[in-house]
């Protein structure tokens, strides 16, 4: 099962290596990892999506907790979480199909951020499902390049732990 971990860490050099190293050492594949400063510049928040069986995930979380630079870890409940991802998709768009593509972009409320002679670059923000859906819609036109940020997430409401 996929889990989204929100990990609050010291904003210091080397912390990313400590965390990434721990996951690989304990046999965990990281699906995605997004990191950036929080409201307090002393700390960073990492949003890590991992695939794992609950028992072994528990073990990794306990091991993570032991890292001196890790302050808090939340295994986010998907029902109580807002999660977003940003994706840039460069897609083939010759005149013949360009209008169709623009229509898809509109339906998904995505943006066109770059126009070239034979391609369009599209920016999509949304949860994993939406991003996946537009990717699938655009694939038949020929996706030339794609970059994604990885998911970032926060627990809903006041419970901003």
């Amino acid at each position, binding site marked *: 099962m996929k889990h989204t971990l929100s990990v609050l860490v*010291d904003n210091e050099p080397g912390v990313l290596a400590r965390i990434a190293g721990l996951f690989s050492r304990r046999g965990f594949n990281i699906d995605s990892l997004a990191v950036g400063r929080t409201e307090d510049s002393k700390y960073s928040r990492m949003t890590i999506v991992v695939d794992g069986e609950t028992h072994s995930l528990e*073990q990794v979380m306990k091991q993570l907790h032991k890292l*001196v630079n890790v302050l808090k870890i939340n295994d986010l409940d998907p029902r109580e979480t807002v999660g977003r991802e940003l994706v840039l998709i460069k897609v083939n768009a010759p005149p013949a199909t360009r209008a169709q593509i623009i229509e898809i972009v509109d339906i998904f409320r995505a943006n066109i951020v770059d126009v070239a002679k034979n391609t369009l670059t599209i920016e999509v923000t949304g949860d994993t499902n939406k991003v996946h859906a537009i990717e699938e819609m655009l694939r038949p036109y020929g996706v030339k390049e794609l970059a994604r940020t990885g998911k970032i997430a926060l627990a809903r409401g006041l419970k901003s732990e």
Partner: protein
Amino acid sequence: MKLTGAEALIKSLEKEGVEVIFGYPGGAVLPIYDVLYDSKIRHILVRHEQCAAHAADGYARVTGKVGVCMATSGPGATNLVTGIANAQLDSIPMVAFTGQVATHMIGTDGFQEADITGITLPIVKHNYLVKDAKDLPQIVREAFYIASSGRPGPVLIDIPADVSKAQCVYRESAQLNLAGYKPTIKGHARQIKQAAKAICQAERPLIVGGGGILRSRAWDELQKLVRLTRIPITTTLMGKSAYPETDDLYIGMPGMHGTRCANYALTECDLLVAIGMRFDDRVTGKLSVFAPEALVVHIDIDPAEISKNIKARIPIVGDAKAVLKQLLVAVEKEKLEGTKDIEAWREQINNWKKKYPLIYKKDGKLRPEFVVEKTCEITKGKAIIATEVGQNQMWAAQFYKCTKPGSFVSSGGLGTMGFGLPASIGAQVGKPDEVVIDIAGDGSVQMVSQELATAVASKLPINIFILNNGYLGMVRQWQELFYHCRYSSTDLAVGTPDFVKLAEAYGAKGIRVTKKSEVESAIKEAIKSPKTVVVDFVVEREENVFPMVPSGVSISEMIGGEIE
């Protein structure tokens, strides 16, 4: 006050109460060694950096203090790695200092540059790369605190040469501010109560003590618990010496080369009170059939160890000493409600103990078990015993009955050959008035024999008892039992030095023993001597360690070691 980084460092170490550093100099730590020259901190010059870490480790085990070692950048730092990993796996408090190339050279593959903070990431409790000399006092404070608190472990501090040389305003370390590091000391009251209830209601209870008892110096509390409940007790290799082994309720070590009694008791107990141990595979054998009937109470300071290998029904996170104190009170109270009679269980255990003692052939031959047994007899079980790794280690564990807490120094987690000799050096430095003996193998000791120089130069009267079988004995035993006696690369007979001459070459005393009848006098002579002594016990070559649990089966399925 203005100081150089090196001066600030040594001042900080003095403030931590550091008495001794085990180390080896080089270019990147020249500024530090220059300050050390005038410091009251003793420096023990080892002959290989790995042994600086092992010596600091041995020192820490016998004193309970943080062991400190130091090496230069690049090869000096990488030579420390095995010793650091050893300390990590056995949870030993250690602070290791390494020199580093100057800050502006980092990342350029400069001369003797090695990314030692990167290399040691998976084998330290924490590490630091110091960027500014003024941070040193604070970092040292943190490092000693992290190394020695919670579940102890090694912390490495990497100091670039320019940081050591830089002038800085020395400011004493402020309050510790480690938001992400807060070890739990006291146990949860409700869990303690449940554990006390379980203890009083069990019919076949068993206590297993691990290294955590020694790390938290909780041996008095452990003894009190055993006396109060009269529950039989076993200690793991790491927990050896935490409980007096001559006591009636003590049933030996569990696991791969443990006693049949301990392994049978584990398999049949209905309550297992595990304290400061982590259910290592050498202890549990096949996990799915380990202690199948037991309700497990697991007391450990590291939450990550709880239910990692064995599901704990009553987990208690906390320091062994603090939790045992709480538990004693709770059990006293619970006892008023009545306890189950466990006399039948004790009798069962006594029968196993009588029926399956540890044995070896008592003929005229010089057997390694006899050497260990005699050593124990002569020292009354009160010497500090370090071991190497292999058969020698297992015979030491089986036949040396420790009666003094914290006196058994052995590489359990990493199983590092070459640990015992340098660890003895550290132990003797920490306990100058005690008898220190390294029960060694001929293979292991050859990995670190250069440290005889360290022992002689530092006038340390350590005793190295080599159980010389001319083999990498433990590996040979496995080849005999599981690989059709194909002794692939385990015969050391050719090339092994004359250990008596080797000792003498270093200025130590050398004694050779080839007959059973010479054992006693040789041991006495060695212990009496004020010198570093090597005793070469030329023992039966193909003696095996029994009983044993072959890999992949239940610990109740032991082979060998039965009276015929």
